[in-house]
């Protein structure tokens, strides 16, 4: 096991090597070769991590391995830079490398002919390095550093086609909105460092466990929420999700890699990592944010007509699922969904990229249709991903979504006041099935609505569809597995019934101790309703066992309903051109109204809020920068100067240069002296 961390570190540094090579020699290396170089390094990294993961799973392993080196001292606190490897790291690392490999290969085909081809792989390599660093990092500070770096790569890649003002704007927006979250993340780190004197996760946990926050539970809650706000920004949760739809201005592989599979999931990963210190109140807050996000964006996705935007809102919705799962205590379920979602959403994006590529840049699904004939492989893989995300049994999404619903149901069952936390995801499950099937049907089935697009559509080259196939296989099979029966962290029952598959591997990493669990059992916090309620929820994963069946039934029903509706629409509107109008008069009118409202709210209120605050800042900036600084502060200073000048001028009045005035002054002075003398004598 000793070599384990170093193997992963090697795999981690490979993309960095690619980045360094490409940044200095990119243009020399040229178009295809730079892509092959980056992809080759990435595949090597994936291979290393797969070997490592295999070894980890099949040859026994400790709970976690940590390697760190002294990095710096912050004041008096020594800060180490280290990596921490546990089952979750292994899973995430492998997922990132594998998905990234697929997307790197795909990009070679997709970006073919772009004048900045090497640059693209430079950024991708840097992104892969940063993302893997984020996964490996053992401290909050390390997480933050790579957190920012992935944000930077996201900035570069969204703005890759910077000639388009929309792309440049979207990139800027993404970065700045993320910075809002990061700012609070930083505050969270500051709280943690201030209270515990540690930034490593293990250090923080043990300090918190020993009562670093005793008597300051509110502060701990605040810290948790601050840290969570980092995730809100990065994982595009309400209300900071506004950047993600705009981020679709970037090239499609970027959307797949960064804005679907990996970077946006980093927020979920972060919440999962800091889960032990989240107080019940913080968890409840998280759960509700997730709930609002998932239903809102699912509604909006229904009315989107841009293929990538549908997927973007669907991504936000799915991330909401994960956040909600973590919020209700379904730690395993949330992270499980993260992995499955990464596979099928990457596949969906790559599929959409393939469609866009095949349709020569067309993104409007109203102009597509019957593309199944032209690009069968894309169509089939897309269908697989659609099934996965919709939650069709035996596809990966089914298992993970089922786990989430079970956790949510378990939570709601024990806390009836929070029933909404189950109803929302259940509803959204139906919506998901509906809008995804709608997307699939409109794109690949029905009729060809735009002859031009249809006529010129073609299947993508092999370089692009092979990754699709690989991801399709993953989208089906990755979710298979079984949870171990024993309670998490309960070593006594470890020998009981071993689970298998991905879910069991994730379950191994589940934190054994949590603040919320602790709060309930020790009663150190006042046994408020929320506290005790959520404390039990932290064991929702265990409780969920009993709720799996009902959750499955509900989810499947919702899914079937969604599918049925989509099929109905499809049947009704087959061969009809004005499908949107007919849409409205049929049964989905209400849903659509709601969706339209959601979209309006999103576009007008939230985006308006973001833009408005930007405008407000700009106005303040212009006021302070131009008016206040020039007229106020500088004016004050110049005022002093002007006063001095005026005083000088006043004095100059006497200085007329006229002999007579001087003489008069002289006489005045003389008179004064004489009178003074007379007076004194």
């Amino acid at each position, binding site marked *: 096991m000793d070599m384990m961390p170093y193997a992963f570190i090697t795999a981690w540094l490979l993309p960095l090597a690619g980045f360094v090579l490409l940044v200095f020699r990119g243009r020399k290396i040229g178009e295809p070769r730079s892509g092959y170089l980056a992809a080759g390094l990435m595949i090597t990294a994936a291979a290393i991590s797969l070997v490592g993961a295999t070894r980890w799973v099949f040859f026994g392993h400790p709970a976690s391995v940590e390697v760190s080196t002294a990095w*710096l001292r912050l*004041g008096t606190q020594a800060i180490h830079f280290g990596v921490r490897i546990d089952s979750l790291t292994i899973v995430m690392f492998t997922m990132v490398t594998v998905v990234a490999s697929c997307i790197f290969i795909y990009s070679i085909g997709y970006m073919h002919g772009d004048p900045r081809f090497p640059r693209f792989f430079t950024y991708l390599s840097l992104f892969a390095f940063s993302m893997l660093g984020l996964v490996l990092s053992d401290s909050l500070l390390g997480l933050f550093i790579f957190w*920012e770096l992935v944000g*930077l790569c996201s900035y570069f890649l969204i703005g890759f086609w910077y000639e388009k003002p929309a792309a440049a704007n979207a*990139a800027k927006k993404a970065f*700045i909105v993320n910075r809002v979250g990061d700012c609070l993340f930083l505050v969270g780190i*500051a709280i943690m460092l201030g209270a515990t004197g540690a930034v490593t996760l293990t250090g923080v946990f043990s300090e918190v466990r020993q009562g670093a926050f005793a008597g300051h539970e509110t502060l701990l809650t605040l810290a948790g929420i601050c840290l969570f706000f980092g995730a809100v920004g990065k994982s595009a949760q309400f209300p900071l999700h506004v950047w993600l739809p705009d981020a679709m201005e970037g090239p499609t592989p970027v959307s797949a890699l960064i804005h679907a599979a990996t970077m946006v999931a980093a927020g979920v990963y972060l919440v999962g990592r800091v889960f032990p210190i989240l107080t019940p109140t913080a968890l409840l807050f998280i759960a509700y944010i997730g709930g609002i996000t998932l239903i809102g964006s699912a509604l909006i996705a229904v009315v989107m007509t841009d293929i990538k935007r549908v997927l973007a809102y669907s991504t936000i919705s799915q991330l909401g699922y994960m956040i909600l799962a973590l919020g209700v205590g379904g730690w395993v379920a949330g992270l499980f969904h993260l992995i499955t979602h990464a596979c099928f959403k990457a596949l969906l994006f790559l599929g959409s990229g393939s469609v866009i590529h095949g349709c020569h840049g067309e993104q409007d699904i109203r102009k597509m249709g019957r593309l199944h004939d032209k690009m069968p492989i894309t169509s089939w893989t897309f269908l697989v991903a659609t099934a996965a995300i919709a939650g069709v049994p035996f596809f990966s999404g089914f298992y993970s979504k089922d786990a989430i619903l079970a956790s949510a149901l378990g939570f709601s069952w024990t806390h009836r006041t929070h029933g909404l936390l189950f109803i929302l995801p259940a509803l959204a499950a139906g919506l998901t099935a509906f809008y995804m099937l709608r997307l699939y049907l409109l794109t690949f089935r029905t009729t060809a609505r735009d002859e031009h697009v249809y006529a010129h559509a073609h299947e993508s080259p092999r370089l692009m569809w092979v990754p699709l196939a690989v991801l399709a296989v993953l989208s089906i099979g990755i979710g298979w597995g079984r949870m171990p029966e024993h309670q998490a962290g309960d070593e006594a029952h470890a020998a009981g019934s071993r689970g298998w598959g991905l879910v069991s591997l994730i379950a191994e990493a589940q934190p054994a101790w949590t603040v919320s669990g602790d709060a309930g059992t020790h009663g150190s916090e006042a046994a408020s309703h929320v506290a005790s309620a959520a404390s039990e929820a932290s064991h929702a994963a265990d409780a969920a066992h009993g709720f799996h069946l009902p959750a499955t039934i509900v989810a499947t029903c919702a899914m079937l309903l969604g599918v049925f509706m989509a099929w109905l629409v499809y049947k009704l509107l087959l061969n009809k051109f004005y499908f949107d109008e007919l849409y409205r008069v049929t049964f989905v009118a209400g849903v659509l109204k709601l969706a339209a409202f959601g979209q309006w709210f999103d576009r007008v209120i939230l985006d308006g809020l973001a833009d408005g605050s930007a405008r407000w800042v700009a106005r303040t900036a212009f006021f*302070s920068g131009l008016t206040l600084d020039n007229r106020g502060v500088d004016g004050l200073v110049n005022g002093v100067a002007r006063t001095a000048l005026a005083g000088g001028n006043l004095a100059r009045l006497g200085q007329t240069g006229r002999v007579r005035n001087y003489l008069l002054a002289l006489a005045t002075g003389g008179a004064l002296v004489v009178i003074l003398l007379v007076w004194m004598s």
Partner: protein
Amino acid sequence: MENHWLLTGIIFLPLLGMGAVLVVPRTWIRWTALGFALVTFLLSLALVPQFRGAPADVFGPAYQDGFKLVDRLPWIHSAGFAIDYFVGVDGLGFPLVLLTTLICLLACIASWNIEKSPRGYFGLFLLLETGMLGVFSALDFFLFYVFWELTLLPMYFLIGIWGGPRREYAAIKFFLYTLLGSVLMLIAMLWFYFASNHEGSHTFNLIALSTPGVLPAFATHKTMWIVCFVLLYIGFAVKIPVFPFHTWLPDAHVEAPTPISMILAGLLLKMGGYGLLRISYPILPNAAAVGAVAWTLGILGVINIIYGALCALAQTDFKKLVAYSSISHMGFVLLGIALLTPAGFQGAMFQMIAHGITSAAMFFLVGVIYDRVHHRDIVRLGGLAGQMPVYTGLAILGFFAAMGLPGLCGFIGEIYVLLGSWQATVLGPVGAKVLTVIAATGVILTAGYILWSIQRVFLGAPKPEYAGVPEISRREIGIMVPLGTLAVALGVLPWQTVLVFVHGTLDNILRLMIYNR
């Protein structure tokens, strides 16, 4: 104490260079200046070994023991005054001396295309370097003051003669502001001198003045140290510059020629922060620990951060934007110093070095554009990424380093200050935290103005009027490479590159504070 000639040599070599520049033939002037700047830089590298080793050996048990390469000669010992030529460096002065020689070397290369009377330019330039080196190594208050004023004069002429259209206004403004500050400093200096009692006589010796008991009158009179602190503070605040003494900076920067802007932002502003750490805090530790003082300085620091960033956001003159960003960044220095935490001190010191690198880089980058398109209006720029890809890459590196991107030098300074000030106790349980949170929002604004200017300058469709703009030249790349390398090196290994040389001294200064005893 034994005399080391190395430091004296470093300080006065540029002065020698000035003499040489004044006599060599016209065609040799640039090379002569460059040669002297280079040799000075190489000599200053010889300081590094002095600061390697165990912290206890390098920094000594107390602040007063940490000085290396001390050189001391009697200078003015008449009319009852005891003024020494007394120089030495510790962890505070050493990195700044090194930074000075480096930035001056780079600025000298950046000055290559100065056509207007180069003899005078390079002469004053080297004089300025001597002045700054003297400030960063003087240990006698009087000597410090002399060097402090010595930097003022060349700067005045360098802006006033080689500057832009409004150069006279800017130069006068700069001069008046700084003079105001230094006059107040002079009062405090004389006050210290006549209040001091070091082995039976008055003294200007900064080390002696920072020894407890040397200023007996100050031990009891609270008003006295507060007044002196305020006098010194205004002197240094003008240089940092702290709101509301900052308005000379944008004007001076906009009018100054590019290399002078590099020096002004990269080095001259550091004299303010250095002065606070070298003079105000060690001599008046009680004053610094007063809650009201810490509050004032902390709030002013936060105002600097936010206000500077807001002002930067509003500018359309590229150089003015960078100038305001300097104000914002120097706010972190002030905040870090004000709240009296080890991490804050380290962060402030690191931020000074980091800002020295990034601001020099940014001003240089702006100068590169200005040389090519002859204006600095951000609104009219755009799409340069297509025409000047290498330049764009370097510029983005420089700007992101300033923005505080992890892995680059700006980040370390900011996070040290923020994390340090969060833990401060001098403002009560909540005060420091509130300040920290407000300061942290400055990070968003920073991202705002940096990204917005990147977008407006580099991104977007290429504009036809800049079609023939030549790519950054080899000389200019040569200037950016050291700066970029340092930005990365300092960002990745902050401890090994900077903090290991300074932390002991900073801890010792902090230990001087009553507050920490």
